[in-house]
């Protein structure tokens, strides 16, 4: 953006700020609420909790004990403050008393002559009866257990004395902790666990309202059209509005932080924690944490705006952003898991990287070398989200018509397109959601069913059937949606060549990821799955159905959904390259398995390219069936289930097979444009 562009964007920024800050609702949400809410929640709730706990501790409680409870113990219990003991004839009456609330809890002895058992050096079995649904009963239970412990300790001391043994006799080993982390590091760890999550949630909330108000809200109020006739570019409008969203988010974030800090200062730490934890940081760490927080606000603002701008009204934008809110919280949850740290990979993941960076800054008290990767990749993500938002602003159908959220993927200056007989992007996204839900809940329902039944039902019932139903319900063209046409010979040849070796490439990718410690070690459930597959492969009666389920069914069902329906829907609005990449990414994600996601993405790219070039589904089906079938056959018949492809024996064969996909790609790139009757629009 030029200097003049920045100047114009700053004019819009100022106007948006003035207008938003004049709204009483905004002021209440941004300033009053945080300044009042935290003191009220933390101090008020804290005091209320303390008062309630104290009240419980000082409430007179009636407890019971059967006659089989030693007299000495009964005396200990009765001597306790606010506790009165009644002796009950038997266990049944005591239970009845606790159940009807006349007694809060009670102790039942197992033998009638406890004194004799204890004198003989034996062990006495006692049972504490309480009602887990009552606070008072739980309090009584605690008091009884404390009394029993006092009684038991005294008894033990007496026994040791009689034996002439010191107390250490029953404690041959005593463990003490020596935490080498200085108080600052412990404080950082404590803050690092909660702060990124808390601040992020606040930031998302803070961008939510302004992002909607300044985009969809302005459309609804009819002022956007006027702004669009001013001599400024869409980028300037987006830039100005974005700056306003981020500023408002940062003000809200700051207000929340200030309020929390005051509450934190006002709330004294428990003594044992206060001595061990320090919440002081160097200026450099403080500055970097602040920078990360600002970038977090910028990130959320960009994402929220890119989505909100596609909505026609405030309400519609809320419908779009509420799920996004939850989607943003998911990576935050991941980053707050113990053991999840900043790595070369996680430093590039949006949102996760910033949360982890803040965590690492607070815990280590120093900047990680990966911090620059975090900031640079975040800047790229922000630029991408803003570019999307600006692109939507150029889309007249969104600004004046009703193109909706699919405009994010629309071609530049998208028009109101005629409807070809294939699904739209929106319909495809809904179908993908339904399929995912069907796979998830269907698999849960099928738990315990034979593996072959699960495999076949998932493919035919959860993947293919919803796609067929969608095309049928919308009265679309099956042939065009699923690319049911005769492929050219070279596409079939390319499919056979690629399928003969693509599985080697896929396994190599997995092996490389393992070696780089990117993938976790397979869990027992996966090993069990692999073992079951091996059993089915070994039995000639089930081997055929297994191959049909693992090689043929996915080749038909997944190709129909991803290379047919999804890629076709995407091609209505985006370039061939984008459509291939997006469907391959969806294909990878749909495997719901970290080991298969990346290989599936890679093979998905190849199959997408094949479908685009040939205009037919069949080459992809051939490639997919060969890929899965050969991978399965090699795993169970050539090497056995426990061997991989890293052995020296397998290497030359694998290398030779890899020539297949390579020559297929050469063949594909030599063949020109896709067939002219392809279902793509504007290709």
């Amino acid at each position, binding site marked *: 953006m030029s200097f003049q562009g920045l100047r*114009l964007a700053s*004019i*819009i920024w100022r*106007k948006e700020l*003035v*207008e938003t800050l*004049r*709204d009483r609702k905004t002021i209440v949400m941004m300033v009053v609420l945080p300044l009042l809410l935290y003191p009220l929640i933390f101090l008020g709730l804290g005091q209320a909790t303390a008062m309630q706990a104290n009240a419980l501790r000082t409430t007179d409680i009636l407890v019971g004990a059967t006659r089989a409870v030693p007299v000495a113990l009964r005396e200990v219990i009765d001597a306790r403050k606010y506790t009165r003991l009644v002796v009950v004839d038997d266990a049944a009456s005591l239970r009845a008393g606790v159940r009807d609330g006349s007694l809060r809890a009670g102790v039942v002895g197992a033998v009638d002559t406890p004194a004799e058992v204890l004198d003989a050096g034996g062990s006495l079995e006692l049972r504490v009866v309480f009602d887990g649904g009552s606070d008072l009963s739980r309090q009584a239970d605690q008091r009884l257990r404390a009394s029993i412990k006092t009684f038991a300790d005294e008894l033990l001391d007496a026994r040791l004395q009689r034996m002439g043994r010191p107390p250490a006799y029953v404690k041959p080993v005593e463990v003490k902790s020596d935490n080498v982390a200085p108080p600052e590091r412990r404080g950082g760890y404590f803050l690092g666990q909660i702060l990124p999550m808390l601040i992020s949630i606040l930031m998302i909330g803070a961008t939510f309202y302004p992002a909607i108000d300044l985009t969809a809200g302005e459309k609804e*109020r*009819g*002022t956007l*059209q*006027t702004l*669009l*006739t*001013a*001599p*400024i*570019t869409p980028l300037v409008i987006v830039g100005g509005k974005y700056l306003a969203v981020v500023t408002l988010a940062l003000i809200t974030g700051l207000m929340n932080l200030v309020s929390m800090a005051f509450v934190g200062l006002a709330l004294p730490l428990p003594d044992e924690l206060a001595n061990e934890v320090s919440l002081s940081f160097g200026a450099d760490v403080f500055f970097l944490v602040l920078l990360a927080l600002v970038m977090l606000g910028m990130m959320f603002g960009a994402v929220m705006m890119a989505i909100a701008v596609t909505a026609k009204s405030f309400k519609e934008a809320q419908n779009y952003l509420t799920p996004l809110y939850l989607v943003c919280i998911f990576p935050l949850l991941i980053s707050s898991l113990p053991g999840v740290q900043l790595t070369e990979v996680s430093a590039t993941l949006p949102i996760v990287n910033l949360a982890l960076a803040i965590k690492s800054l607070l815990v280590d008290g120093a900047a990680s070398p990966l911090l620059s990767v975090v900031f640079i990749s975040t800047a790229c993500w922000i630029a991408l989200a803003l570019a999307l938002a600006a692109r939507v602003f150029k889309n*007249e159908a969104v*600004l*004046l*018509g009703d193109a909706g959220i699919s405009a994010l993927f629309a071609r530049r*200056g998208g*028009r*109101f*397109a*005629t*409807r070809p007989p294939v699904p739209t992007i929106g319909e495809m996204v809904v179908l993908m959601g339904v399929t995912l839900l069907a796979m998830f809940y269907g698999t849960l329902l099928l738990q315990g069913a034979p593996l072959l039944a699960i495999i076949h039902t998932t493919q035919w019932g959860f993947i293919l059937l919803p796609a067929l139903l969608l095309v049928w319900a919308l009265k679309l063209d099956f042939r065009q949606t699923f690319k049911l046409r005769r492929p050219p010979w070279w596409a079939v040849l390319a499919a056979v060549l690629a399928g003969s070796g693509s599985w080697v490439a896929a396994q190599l990718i997995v092996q490389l990821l393992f070696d780089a410690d990117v993938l976790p070690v397979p869990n027992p459930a996966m090993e069990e799955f692999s073992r079951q597959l091996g059993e089915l492969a070994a039995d000639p009666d089930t081997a055929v159905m297994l191959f049909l389920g693992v090689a043929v069914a996915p080749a038909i069902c997944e190709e129909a959904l991803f290379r047919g329906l999804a890629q076709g829907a995407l091609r209505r609005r985006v370039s061939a390259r984008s459509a291939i990449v997006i469907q391959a990414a969806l294909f990878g994600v749909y495997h719901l398995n970290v080991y298969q996601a990346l290989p599936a993405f890679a093979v998905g790219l190849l199959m997408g390219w094949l479908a685009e070039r040939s205009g037919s589904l069949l080459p992809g089906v051939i490639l997919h069936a060969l890929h899965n079938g050969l991978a399965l056959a090699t795993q169970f018949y050539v090497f056995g289930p426990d061997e991989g492809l890293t052995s020296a024996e397998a290497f030359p064969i694998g290398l030779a097979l890899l020539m297949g996909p390579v020559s297929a790609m050469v063949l594909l790139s030599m063949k020109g444009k896709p067939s002219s009757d392809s279902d793509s629009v504007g290709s």
Partner: protein
Amino acid sequence: MSTGGIVAEGLTRSYGDLLAADNVSLSVQPGEVVGLLGPNGAGKTTTLRMLATLLTPSAGRATVAGYDIAAAPLEVRRRLGYLTGDTGLYNRLNAREILRFFGRLHGWGPRRIEERTEVVVDLLGITDFAQRRTERLSTGQRQRISIARAVFVEPPVLILDEPTSGLDILAARDILEFFRLVADAGTAVLISTHIMAEVELICDRAAIIHRGTVRCSGTLDELRALGGDASLSAGFFRLLGEEDRGSAKGPPH
């Protein structure tokens, strides 16, 4: 090619199979008010939006104030005042702030903005409520501020899309007379309406548009002559055909 006003040649815009504007040609000279007359859904708004660079034409070309709408949209917007009947205003700003905002977007300096604000506020009679937030104003008052915004930077071309919708008859007449004065001062004004009386009140010429195409254009006398009884309404109905009278919502006044 004219260096001022509006010249449109064969402007076409389709939404899928629907041709919202089909081969629309018209011109407006500086100092002239031209009415774009047609029933609801005739293609008036689509045509005006194309001229205002809000919509990209599917075919055809046009110049506004001498600049091509496709090649130099920013230059067009610099010289254009655009107003619709349902134009929204920033609710939490007052008239002066709104004028200042748009003045600054046009690159005007503070002094020039202040001087022009005084002139426009006085001209449109909004002095009394110029400091009040627009959310507290009546529809008529709000529309006056919208007009002030549209004419603020003294654009050589004004495009008005049903600017009197929602206004009472007196307020509407005041506003139309104001635009007549603006045109007399040399501005090219293109106004869309489905109300005959408005055309008769201020227009020099008019084009009748129906189902996306301009059926005829000319001076008001030429259009009246179409009906044979010296009334614009008669000419309008005759042109649209008796079978279309039902689709024109509400009889033209």
